[in-house]
């Protein structure tokens, strides 16, 4: 019987995550087979992210359209519970996000933690809005006549969101949460390095009882994807948050969006993502429906 030679155990290599897209509740690679390297501000390679294509964008819109009616039909209470659940899941992954954000944004860990905290609180803020929007934005109208007349907000449908490059998690949260709280489904473009926290946020959503397709995340280039979304006739609204204010791209996208009269939120220069957002990103994605009914014996 031969004796095995004593060797030092080999150092363990880590298992790295593959970053993919988040479409229809699943995590597919880009149909184009493309990816792009995400690097730290120092230039150091972090990971490859899937580079979404025009076809991915169209798939995402289809997934959003399919999911939207069910999401809108869910009770406001239920939607609020799910948004709150996202906050709970984020809180549990607080350190994971902080490290990831610190890496991709080149932030100190404390600053990254502060951003995660702000994002979690923002989810809670919007969770609380779900069953209050109609109370704050709706009205019983005193029309002159024997009619009952009431106005209430309803979701506009599918919203395309161009998330800002930074702050990554807070920026994404600040565009996604206000759009979905009222019952819309979204396709969010997470540009460049934002792609990594975006996909991790997708994993949070996939485990928070959010129905697949309500939020779809495309990583890659805003310049490449935005024109397809802006001109897509099955998209009802467009948030240009991640486009430079006053730029030619912003104008072109708004022109494209005009074709089917998308509701457009224009970018604003120097927007403060940490400030109280109020309802500024909720209202643009809501329609007002007014119902009349006669009163009489």
């Amino acid at each position, binding site marked *: 019987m031969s004796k095995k030679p004593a060797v030092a155990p080999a150092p363990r290599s880590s298992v790295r995550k593959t970053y993919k897209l988040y479409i229809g509740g699943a995590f597919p690679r880009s149909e184009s087979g493309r990816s792009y390297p995400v690097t730290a501000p120092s230039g150091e390679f972090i990971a490859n992210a899937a580079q979404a294509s025009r076809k991915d964008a169209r798939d995402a819109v289809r997934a959003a359209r399919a999911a939207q009616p069910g999401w809108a039909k869910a009770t406001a*209470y239920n939607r609020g519970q799910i948004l709150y659940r996202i906050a709970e899941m984020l809180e549990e992954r607080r350190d994971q996000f902080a490290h990831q954000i610190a890496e991709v944004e080149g932030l100190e860990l404390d600053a990254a933690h502060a951003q995660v905290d702000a994002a979690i609180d923002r989810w809670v803020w919007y969770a*609380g809005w779900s069953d209050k929007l109609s109370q*704050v934005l709706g009205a019983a109208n005193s029309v002159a006549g024997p009619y009952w007349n009431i106005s209430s907000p309803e979701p506009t449908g599918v919203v395309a969101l161009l998330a800002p490059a930074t702050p990554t998690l807070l920026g994404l949260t600040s565009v996604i949460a206000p759009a979905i709280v009222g019952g819309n489904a979204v396709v969010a473009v997470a540009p460049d390095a934002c792609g990594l926290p975006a996909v991790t946020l997708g994993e949070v959503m996939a485990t928070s009882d959010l129905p697949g397709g309500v939020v779809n995340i495309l990583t890659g280039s805003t310049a490449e994807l935005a024109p397809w979304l802006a001109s897509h006739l099955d998209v009802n609204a467009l948030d240009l948050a991640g486009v430079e204010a006053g730029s030619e791209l912003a104008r072109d996208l708004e022109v494209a969006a005009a074709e089917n009269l998308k509701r457009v939120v224009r970018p604003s220069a120097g927007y403060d993502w940490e400030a109280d957002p109020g309802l500024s990103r909720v209202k643009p994605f809501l329609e007002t429906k007014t119902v009349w009914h006669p009163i*009489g*014996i």
Partner: protein
Amino acid sequence: MSIFEYAPAPESRSVVDLKPAYGLFIDGAFVDGSAGSFKSVNPATEEVLAEVAMGDASDVDRAVAAARRAYDEVWSRLPGRERAKYIFRIARLIQERARELAVLESLDNGKPIRESRDVDVPLAAAHFFYYAGWADKLPYANLGPDPKPLGVAGQVIPWNFPLLMLAWKVAPALACGNTVVLKPAETTPLTALLFAEICQQADLPPGVVNIVTGAGATGAAVVGHPGVDKVAFTGSTEVGRLIAKQVAGTAKKVTLELGGKAANLVFDDAPLEQAVEGIVDGIFFNQGHVCCAGSRLLVQESVAEEVVDRLRERMKTLRVGDPLDKNTDIGAINSAEQLAKIQTLSEAGEAEGATRWSPPCELPERGFFFAPTIFTGVSQAHRIAREEIFGPVLSVLTFRTPAEAVEKANNTAYGLSAGVWTDKGSRILWLAQRMRAGVVWANTFNRFDPTSPFGGYKESGYGREGGRHGLEAYLDV
């Protein structure tokens, strides 16, 4: 004779860990009371569930002092979004401990487990969830430019929905930045004490919620305490009147949610099968221990006979008995005292000439039970048409025209709720305009939601609880 024989399907009570004795919950800890103790009894079996501390004026004083300290030093200084997190935690803990709360509620109150499990506890959690969301959104409530909390709220709640009424009171108070001293009903203190434990698990700062158990005198001490800025009471009109007098001349803000004698109007074009379900739910839900119960059924004459016939058939299928049995429709009357009141008024109904009917049903030998009962041939002058019975007793009256229906429906000192059954939408709205009642249900009854304001006209009290409107009761606006 029933079509189906049911096998008993009792919910296990092992999920509830009852302590032999409970103290008061003051400043985040359970402490002894100064006035001895009283027993909380299971009304379905008459067994003693636990000894509960009797709080007196000195205990109330301690509780108010703790609440004031917590208000000044912690709660009123927290930003809304941080308050919200505690309230969200409470909502989640209620959801997590739902089964335990439901069983305990049925044990202590006598209500069917089906109701405590499917109505009381989920609604209580939803209420905390809803108001948690308001904590950082008060400036959006359209109540004034700079809404501020009032201070210490003194809250006295009834025995018919012990945990749910606690939620109605505590959730908006905390969301608006107030601290509370709550007095649960004498016969149903146990879920409030379990709620105190939930406050501990949520790490709610000590003194933000204080619970002083006891009887009427304890409640009066809470209401009368000079350190209380806001009084919220749910209970009888009789006590509500006393409270209104007690706080007269003070700066205390008051909301009163009192009795009712709701009219449930059935028109000849109503979907009758649905209407009968609504009538049953309206009066027999929670043994009729519901301030907004549809206790006066007003039926259009042309369909009166048919409606009453169908109602009798439906009542024959109601199962009265063990509250913990999942098949039970009508549980135990909450106390011997309440049972006596229901009996007295029912006897008065017979004596005054109305016709009494109950389905054949065997009542348990022990415990406080009362068969579902309807009176026909009731006139508006009868005591059973005027006084709140607060039991499973329905008075049936008739009408011919919509105008007569309105006249009769409003012919009461109360004005909490009303029901309308008709297929015609415009008639629903016409009637709703004319009902002197705070809530009008159309083709449904006894619907509750945290987003929907609730409260009465006339002697059913003032102020609203629930919804955006419910915030105003707890804000200086």
